[in-house]
Structure formats: C-alpha cells, structure tokens
C-alpha cells in the first residue's frame, strides 16, 4: 500500500511542480501577465523541458512504466511521404502508410555507396518471403512482415507499447508487446555477448539521469524499418533513456556499423508514458499471421 501511494503521489507532485513552472507567467513570459497564456508546452521542443530529476528507485531514476513512441520511423527512419503500402488494390486505404519526418540526426543515413544498393534491393523485396531453402531463409522480406523479433533500436519505435521493469536486481527487463519480445539489460555487466541473438546483448549503466545501454551481438538479419534500412553483423548500438518529465522520456541511439555506414549516426525521439488507468501490454503473437505466407506452399494440395 505504501508503494502504491508513493508511486502515485510522487509523479503527481512532480507534475504539479512542473505545471506551476510552465504556466507561471513570471517564468514563462518575463513580463506583464497575459490574459490567456498559450499552451507553451506544445510549442517547446522536448530538449527545452525544464530540468527534471526523476523519482529514485534503489538510488537510480525510476523508469518503470508502459512507454510508447509516436514517430513513424518503423516505416522509414528518414523523411517519408504518405505512401501506398502493399495491396492497396485489394484493401484500399487500410494499407496506406502515413508520412513522417526523419528521426536521423542530419536527416540522411550515411550509407557506403555499395550498401545503399542493398537497401534499395531490400525495399523492393520487402513483402517477399521464401523459406524453401534453409540457407536462403532470410534473404527476402522485412523481418517485421515475417513476425521476427525486431532487434534494437527498431523495437523502440515500432507502433506498440513496451514495459520497463526495473527492480533491485542487476537486471532490467524490457518487454515489448510486438511478438511478445523481451530483452534483459544486464547492469554493469562485464561479459561480452556469448553469441548473436535477435534482440542482442544489452549491458547497462547509469549516467546521472540517463540509463545508457550498450547493445552488441545482434543477428544481422534484422532491419531498421520497412524501407529496407539495414545493418551488418558489426552493428553496435548505444541507447540513452533520459526521463524528461513524469510522462516523457528522451530516447537516443547511436548506431555504428563500419561495414554499412561511413560514420556512426544518431536517432532521437521522445517516448510517452501510457497513462490509461488499465494500461497493460496485451499479447501480440503474430506468428499465425505469417503461416500461410511462409508455409502455405508446402501444405497438402498446394501445387
């Protein structure tokens, strides 16, 4: 019971303080009080949030909660116009994909010229799949379309919520609704990735308000988005989770992959706390949605 009231009251307290600061004419306007101050928060980019110190858990910022991004980077990390997704001739605007702005610092991914060709090929083949040969199993198609685990950082900007479970053990769990994927962040861990996995090997540490996670050992088959942006087995991701308010967290990731890109590059976007009273991750097991696509041609009676 103590816990619950602490959980509720602390964020509320912070919210009140922040609201008081934001809406205070003295701070916000530096002049005579305005009759109806504009909702300034909407106009402020997140980097100008007032300095925020998150509630503590075991001496560190408490990141527990259900979070979600609202960028459209899962369609394309870079600038993208509204576009027809697959089979609009069959399902119309159900298959329309919304536009969005690049989340990449500088706007454009620094591909090596030869690697850019592979990206374009990926995009052209994104809704194809052929699993008839084990060796070529992963050659075609966006892994998301096949319901594969998405890897990092893609999991963070897929249009599904995820929950951070932070306690006192050296492990922080991130559970993603998409494909019921999970990953464990091992805090202050020394061991290197023992093998490549779909969600990689995450080692975390705290830098003040920020949870910094170093991710290596990711399977090379994951993509960054539906546009075919991709990486090699040399992928190295450093994520930074920084609380901005009780309800917002800044997410930044630096991506280094010398096989594919000419230099490291960075993405950033805010995460939003899901505030529904009954919010919880539901089960999104998408394997059944792929079985006809992947295995249909091997069923009885198929030509």
């Amino acid at each position, binding site marked *: 019971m*103590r*816990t*619950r009231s*602490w*959980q509720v009251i602390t964020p509320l307290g912070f919210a009140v303080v922040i609201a008081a600061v934001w809406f205070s004419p003295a701070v916000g306007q530096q002049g005579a009080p305005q009759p109806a101050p504009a909702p300034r928060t909407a106009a402020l980019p997140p980097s100008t949030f007032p300095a925020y110190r998150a509630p503590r*858990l*075991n001496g560190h910022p408490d990141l*527990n909660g259900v979070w979600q991004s609202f960028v459209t980077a899962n369609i394309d990390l870079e600038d993208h116009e509204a576009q027809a997704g697959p089979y609009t001739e069959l399902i119309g605007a159900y298959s329309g994909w919304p536009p969005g702005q690049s989340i990449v610092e500088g706007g454009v991914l620094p591909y090596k010229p030869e690697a850019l060709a592979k990206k374009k090929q990926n995009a052209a083949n994104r809704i194809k799949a052929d*699993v*008839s040969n*084990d060796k070529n*199993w992963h050659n075609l198609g966006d*892994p998301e379309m096949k*319901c*594969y*685990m998405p890897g990092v950082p893609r999991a963070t900007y897929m249009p599904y919520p995820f*929950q951070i*479970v*932070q*306690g*006192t*053990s050296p*492990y*922080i*769990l991130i*559970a993603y609704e998409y494909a*019921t*994927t*999970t*990953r*464990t962040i*091992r805090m202050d861990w020394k*061991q290197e990735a*023992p*093998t*490549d*996995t*779909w*969600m990689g090997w995450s080692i975390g540490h705290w830098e003040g308000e920020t949870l910094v996670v170093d991710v290596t050992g990711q*399977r090379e*088959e994951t993509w960054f988005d539906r546009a075919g942006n991709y990486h090699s087995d040399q992928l190295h991701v450093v994520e930074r989770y920084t609380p901005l308010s009780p309800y917002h967290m800044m997410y930044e990731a630096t991506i280094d992959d010398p096989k594919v890109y000419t230099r490291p590059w960075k993405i950033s976007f805010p995460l939003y706390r899901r505030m529904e009273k*009954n919010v*919880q*991750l*539901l*089960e999104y*097991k998408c*394997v*059944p949605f*792929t*079985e006809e696509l*992947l*295995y249909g041609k*091997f*069923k*009885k009676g198929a030509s």
Partner: protein
Amino acid sequence: MTWRWLSSIVLAAVAAIVMSSALVAQTAKTAASKAAAPKAAVAKATSTAEKAYAKKTPWGDPDLQGVWNDATSTPLQRPAGKGETVSGDEVNLFEEQLANDLSRDRRDGGPEVDVNRAYNEHWMDARRLKITNDHRTSLVVDPPDGRLPPTVPISAERQKIRAERQAAAARFNAGMPNVATELSLPIRCIIRTDSPPYLPTIYNNDFQIYQSPGFVVIAPEMIHSARIIPLDGRPHIGPTLKQWLGDTRGHFEGNTLVIDTTNFRSDDGTVYQGANPETYKITERFTRVADDTINYEFTINDPTTWTKPWTAVIPWTKIDPKEQMYEYMCHEDNFDIVHLLTGARAREKNPALNLTKPQTQR
C-alpha cells in the same frame, strides 16, 4: 499424460535443435551446468512454509528476483506401487530408474530406434535427472494418491475437437502433416513452456523473475515471453479478450505470491492438456522457502474435465548467478516446420519414403 505431453515437447525440441546456433550455444550452456545440484533446504509440499525466506524488496514485497530452474525427474503422477516418498536405498533406485527412462544416450532397441531418439544426452538438462529433494514420487500432492482425479464425460463438441486433434497428431506421427496450422503450438513457435502450469521438460527449464513496485514478472525461457503480473488489485481484462498465455493478476499472502490466470484462448494446447478453456481455472503460488528455493504450487480446477481440483508442487532452484538465461528464438529459424511439410509432400508422391515407425518414439 505426462509422457504424451513430454513427447510432443521432445518433438518440438527436435524441431528446435536444427534451428540455430544461438540455441546450440544456450543449450550447451545449460548442459554444462550439471554440477549445480541444489543444496536447498528441503522444499515442503505445503503452501505455508514455516521457515519462509524473509528477504524483502525496498518497497516491501517478498523478493523473488533471480533466475530459477524447475527441472526434476519426479513424474507429475505417482508410478504404480510407490508410496508418497521414497527413502533409503529406494531413493537411488527410483532416481536411476527415472533417469534411465529419460536417458536418450542409449543404444537399446536397435539402430532405427536409436536414430529415432533423434538426439542425445547433450541436449538434456542434467537437473532433469534428479528427483525432488524431499524424495517425492509425484509432483501431484493432491489428490493424496499422487494421481490426477478421474475425468468426467465431455461434450460432443469437445469430443469432436479431440478427435480432430488426435487425427492431426496421427498424421504428424506418420510424418504426414497437412498444413502448418495443424501442428502443435510448440512446433509452430506460438507457445512452448510459457503457458501455465509450468512443468519440467527435458531442457531449458529456466525462469527469470523480475520485480518492480506493483509488479512481478515471470519470463520463462521458452519462448521469450514475459508474464507481467499487476499486484494492484485491478480487474482482469474484458471477458471477450482472450490470449494464449491468459491474463494474470496477483497479490501477496504473507510471503506467498498468489496469482490467478483467466482469459485463455480456446485453441488446443493453451490450457493444460485436455482441459476446457471455458471452465478452466488455475491458481499458482510462489513461496520462497530458502535463499535458493521457491516452492511453486499450482491448483487446477476444471469441473468439466476432472471430478475435482488437483494440486502439484515443484521446487524451483536458483541457478548459479554466473549462468544466464539467454534468448530463446524459435519462429525466426523454424526450418523444421518446412522440413515436416515438405517431407509429407514427398511421401505423398513416393510411399517408399513412408516412416516404418511413428516419429513420436521416445
């Protein structure tokens, strides 16, 4: 029943072997840890442990965090002729007999049977060869005879579903599956050992428990799912919202985490074998009884399947902290599902390829 369930897991495991080097590495790791025999205090077969381990989280909940393993060779149901426990020389005899039954590293039965065992000791969790520390002869503690209660007659509709399942299983056993969707949920990589009740299998018996204020989360090794359990007394999700792993709510009763799970989907295999998702209720209790032991107790009540509720107790042992639980992927490289189906299509064209023995051979 255990064996039937186990053999489906075995087959799933066969499928899994081929799947990935990640899996190979991880399973090898598990196998390599056979030295980690539990030195736990004896796990009591009751839900009220007198010597409850008293460690608390800073927010006041009993602390269950860590990586745990539930492997044991003690069968779910008591073998005929055995008492509640074994003692003296019988302990080793019983353990050896069970280990021998489970062992795949054997050559009896001829080459074909040997090959049909498909894979050997290397894959198995070595902890799977030990009986529970309290020397019980069954995981079931109620009914007191250690056996599942008698079943009740089932509806014509359920009989039909069972017959369809049996037909699909027979096709599978003959190497002749029609379509991916008739394969079992573990083979399809939809659920594996993450659906309650948690029962020991031949490998990957690890569970990682995470806690945060207001939540306990249990992550079973197979398949990378997290059972996120709110402790704040909120109601279950709406009754029309069904999930393969159900919907779990929990609370602490003293040192015991008590959870109940509802909202299971009706697909075959989502609830304990043969039960009816419409009437099935499962309550699980987790009590830390020593630094390295949790008593896991579950009670299943399904009046349209069994004449009365039944309860089992399985000790969970904390594994060496140097050992880790690694990602278990499945669907991403499910080569075997293609092999099973292409094999069936090849046999349709050429009956000479037909299996001479069913592939469920244990």
